[in-house]
């Protein structure tokens, strides 16, 4: 193995290399996958026979809650992220991701978030309200201990990790492709990664808002999910599934991308209809936002026809992919490697899961199947038959590239057949169990129910899957310790990662290869006319990001914040202070480093600017969800005061004017920085921050006045929605003021000049966004009758 693999632990803690971070993601996620797997085996042991006594009812609730949460957020998502991290820069011909330190921060936040969630076992309070956390089961009244707090805080922390990663990969893919690699020349795995990152940055804000409401209900006594106060329990289900259904595609599309790389390589044919496969992936992502309510057909929410149709429509692009994969195999010179076994396994098993999914698009059928084991079978055919098989295909396909060693193909194929058989034995009978009435989430059943035999069979199958995973671990260990060395291109691959050594050097490629079309590398190797082989060695002027300790320390600060929320406010304050200090150190670490000055990419725009625009797109969903909740709850409070009794419109008009004028000062500040007019730049930056502070002063006055008038967070739905919406906007203004003051201090110290204009510009974009959000709030909350 490469010497890089045996360097001291400290170098892994401070690493910002995408390949090492990919390995960290992979190892961490696999360990969490084992934890989730053990939880699954305990569930199956408990249900193996009637009247099971392996665990108590309370422990069973915790097991299925933690199993679902762990597998979704700590196993499948980060296993996908492992491939994003390791492979995407290699596949697009980049030396790293756009923001390497942010990438490290995403990983460390994931690790601490996962440890925090599982620490709930150590204090005897594991979450036990289901991975869906339906309100009001999660309220203090019905779940008084800290278990739900562990769950909601860890999901918030993990959400930060996913968001940072999502923005990072969108910028990387859009802005860092090799010369000639147009969007349609990108490998399908990169396309699916791009779609998934958009799903992440757009789908996570609604669940974040839902979790904020839950946190405020539990910690501060707000009324979001309080039916007695007029609250609507459907609200949680909407917010959860607006995230939850795109989450299915977040989990499965990377596997589709892997299969789209594996099948052409081992069929020795181009992917059939590659553009259509790409468009299908994009359509799946788009439709994914319109089908969430099929998870709620049984909740009695009213009109469902449009949502039912959308759910049926989404099967079309999915079916297109299936047929394209089959057509890729058709007539190919197929090499039956383990990776191909898993890829073909996915095509078959996911089709079964997809077909049972279409059944749920029909509300009458869905009503029969909801909360039965039929749904358990369906979702496992999608997430094991789909995601996990795809991940194993990727593991066998890219293992030689990552480790420089080959896995044992015979053992791999044995593993495939064991997992394939175990999986079908475990989950196919569950369709039948659901059809004959076995509900999900029950911890035991009586022999008279007639479910005994198929439950026993299912448990045997689950242990078959566990045996298969054990075989993979043996194979991996043997490969790492005495596996045959892998060449740079052991599979006669088609994409760029196979051009570089196995494992790749620190700088990925000696020379960034130019791209002439899809599968350029394969066409080069096989001598297609018109393709000029890329030059080989050029080590000059390669800048690689330096290691940094600030990502891990910042993540630690965030973890302390979460711990503080469960222990003492002093810990919260300490964690917040530590996090802010680390964030400043993080932000200023490479300030004025010439190597970091030039960050323009393929779009002709600086990485940081693209990242801020992506973030603002995500913020549209965050504030959109807050505003939608305010409007949905408007007029539903069962006690006063009502908005028209208390809102001071003249005063708010003044504060609105103040904020609009702060935006004018902000553009004047940017123009001054771009002209290198230091005096004006300071003046306008100070003016913008001052106007921001005046706006906050208005808000403080308004809030204290309302409290004196009897309107508090806890008073009624209007108080809860108003204070949280405007409070979060005020929080954003506060962040903006701190950002502007930091720029001002840099300027006063002579460290902000024309070359730093993009830093002022991105701060300005954030500031103007805060302004336009207020334009919407002013109209919808204050002015609307």
């Amino acid at each position, binding site marked *: 193995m490469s010497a890089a693999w045996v360097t001291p632990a400290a170098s892994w803690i401070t690493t910002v290399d995408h390949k090492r971070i990919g390995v960290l993601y992979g190892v961490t996620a696999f360990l969490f996958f084992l934890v989730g797997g053990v939880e699954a085996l305990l569930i199956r042991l408990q249900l193996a026979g009637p009247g099971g006594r392996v665990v108590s009812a309370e422990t069973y609730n915790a097991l299925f809650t933690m199993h679902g949460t762990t597998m979704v957020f700590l196993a499948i998502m980060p296993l996908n992220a492992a491939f994003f991290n390791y492979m995407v820069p290699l596949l697009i011909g980049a030396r790293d991701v756009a923001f390497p330190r942010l990438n490290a921060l995403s990983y460390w936040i994931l690790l601490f978030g996962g440890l925090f969630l599982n620490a709930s076992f150590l204090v005897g309070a594991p979450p036990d309200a289901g991975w869906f956390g339906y309100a009001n089961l999660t309220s203090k009244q019905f779940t008084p201990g800290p278990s739900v707090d562990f769950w909601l805080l860890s999901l918030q922390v993990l959400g930060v990790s996913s968001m940072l990663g999502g923005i990072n990969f969108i910028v990387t893919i*859009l802005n860092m492709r090799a010369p000639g690699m147009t969007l349609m020349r990108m490998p399908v795995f990169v396309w699916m990664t791009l779609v998934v990152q958009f799903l992440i940055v757009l789908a996570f804000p609604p669940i974040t808002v839902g979790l904020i409401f839950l946190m405020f209900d539990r910690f501060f006594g707000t009324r979001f999910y309080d039916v007695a106060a007029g609250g609507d329990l459907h609200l949680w289900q909407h917010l959860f599934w607006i995230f939850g259904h795109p989450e299915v595609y977040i989990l499965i599309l990377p596997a589709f991308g892997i299969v789209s790389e594996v099948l052409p390589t081992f069929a020795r044919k181009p992917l059939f209809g590659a553009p259509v496969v790409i468009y299908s992936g994009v359509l799946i992502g788009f439709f994914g936002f319109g089908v969430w309510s099929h998870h709620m057909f049984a909740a009695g929410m009213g009109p469902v026809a*449009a949502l039912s149709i959308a759910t049926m429509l989404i099967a079309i692009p999915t079916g297109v992919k299936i047929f394209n994969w089959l057509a890729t195999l058709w007539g190919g010179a197929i090499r039956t490697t383990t990776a191909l076994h898993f890829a073909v396994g996915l095509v078959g098993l996911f089709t079964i899961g997809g077909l049972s999914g279409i059944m749920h698009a029909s509300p009458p059928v869905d009503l029969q199947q909801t909360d039965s084991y039929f749904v358990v079978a369906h979702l496992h055919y999608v997430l094991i038959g789909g995601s996990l098989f795809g991940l194993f295909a990727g593991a066998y396909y890219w293992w030689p590239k990552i480790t420089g060693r080959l896995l044992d193909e015979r053992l791999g194929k044995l593993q495939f057949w064991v997992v394939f058989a175990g999986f079908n034995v475990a989950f196919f009978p569950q369709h039948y169990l659901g059809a004959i009435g076995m509900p999900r989430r029950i911890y035991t059943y009586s022999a008279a129910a007639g479910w005994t035999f198929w439950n026993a069979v299912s448990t045997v199958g689950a242990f078959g899957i566990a045996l298969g995973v054990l075989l993979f671990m043996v194979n991996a260990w043997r490969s790492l310790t005495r596996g045959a060395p892998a060449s740079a291109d052991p599979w006669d691959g088609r994409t760029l990662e196979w051009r570089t050594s196995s494992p790749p050097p620190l700088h990925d490629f000696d020379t960034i290869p130019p791209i002439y079309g899809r599968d350029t590398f394969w066409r080069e190797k096989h001598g297609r006319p018109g393709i000029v082989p890329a030059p080989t060695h050029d080590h000059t002027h390669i800048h690689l990001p330096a290691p940094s300790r600030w990502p891990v320390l910042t993540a630690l600060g965030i973890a302390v914040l979460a711990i503080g929320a469960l222990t003492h406010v002093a810990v919260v304050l300490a964690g917040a202070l530590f996090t802010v200090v680390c964030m400043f150190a993080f932000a200023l670490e490479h300030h004025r480093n010439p190597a970091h000055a030039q960050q323009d990419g393929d779009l002709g725009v600086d990485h940081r600017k693209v990242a801020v625009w992506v973030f603002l797109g995500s913020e549209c969903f965050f504030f959109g969800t807050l505003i939608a909740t305010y409007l949905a709850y408007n007029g539903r409070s069962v006690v006063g005061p009502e908005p028209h009794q208390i809102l001071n419109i003249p005063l708010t008009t003044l504060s*609105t004017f103040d904020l609009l004028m702060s935006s004018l000062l902000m553009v004047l500040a940017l123009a001054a920085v771009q002209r290198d007019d230091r005096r004006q730049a300071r003046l306008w930056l100070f003016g913008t921050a001052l106007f921001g502070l005046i706006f906050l002063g208005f808000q403080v006055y308004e809030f204290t006045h309302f409290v004196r008038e009897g309107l508090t967070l806890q008073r009624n739905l209007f108080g809860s929605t108003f204070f949280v919406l405007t409070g979060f906007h005020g929080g954003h203004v506060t962040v903006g003021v701190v950002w502007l003051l930091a720029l001002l201090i840099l300027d006063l110290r002579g460290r902000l000049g*024309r070359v730093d*204009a993009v830093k002022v510009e991105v701060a300005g974009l954030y500031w103007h966004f805060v302004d336009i959000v207020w334009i919407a709030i002013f109209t919808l909350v204050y002015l609307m009758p």
Partner: protein
Amino acid sequence: MNEPPVEHASIGTYLKVAAILSVVTALEFAVIYIRALTPILVPLLLVLSAGKFALVVLFFMHLRYDSRALAVLFCGPLALATGLVLALMTLTGAFLVLGR
């Protein structure tokens, strides 16, 4: 090092936009007190608000001058988020788009 960034609009344009934003804000404040406008108050306020929103995005955030890709990155999510708000309000009964 970066090339010197290009200014997106003149100072005069910024001042004109700020003046329009101020006038429209004053109009928004005024129209809620004009009883004759009550039947069209909601659409009128929405149009005025959307106009302010667009002015800030196009001129202060420079979307009128910048790469079209940035417009796609922002306007796509904005449109989806607007659809989400409408769908959520419909499904929670705040108002009906399609009817029951």
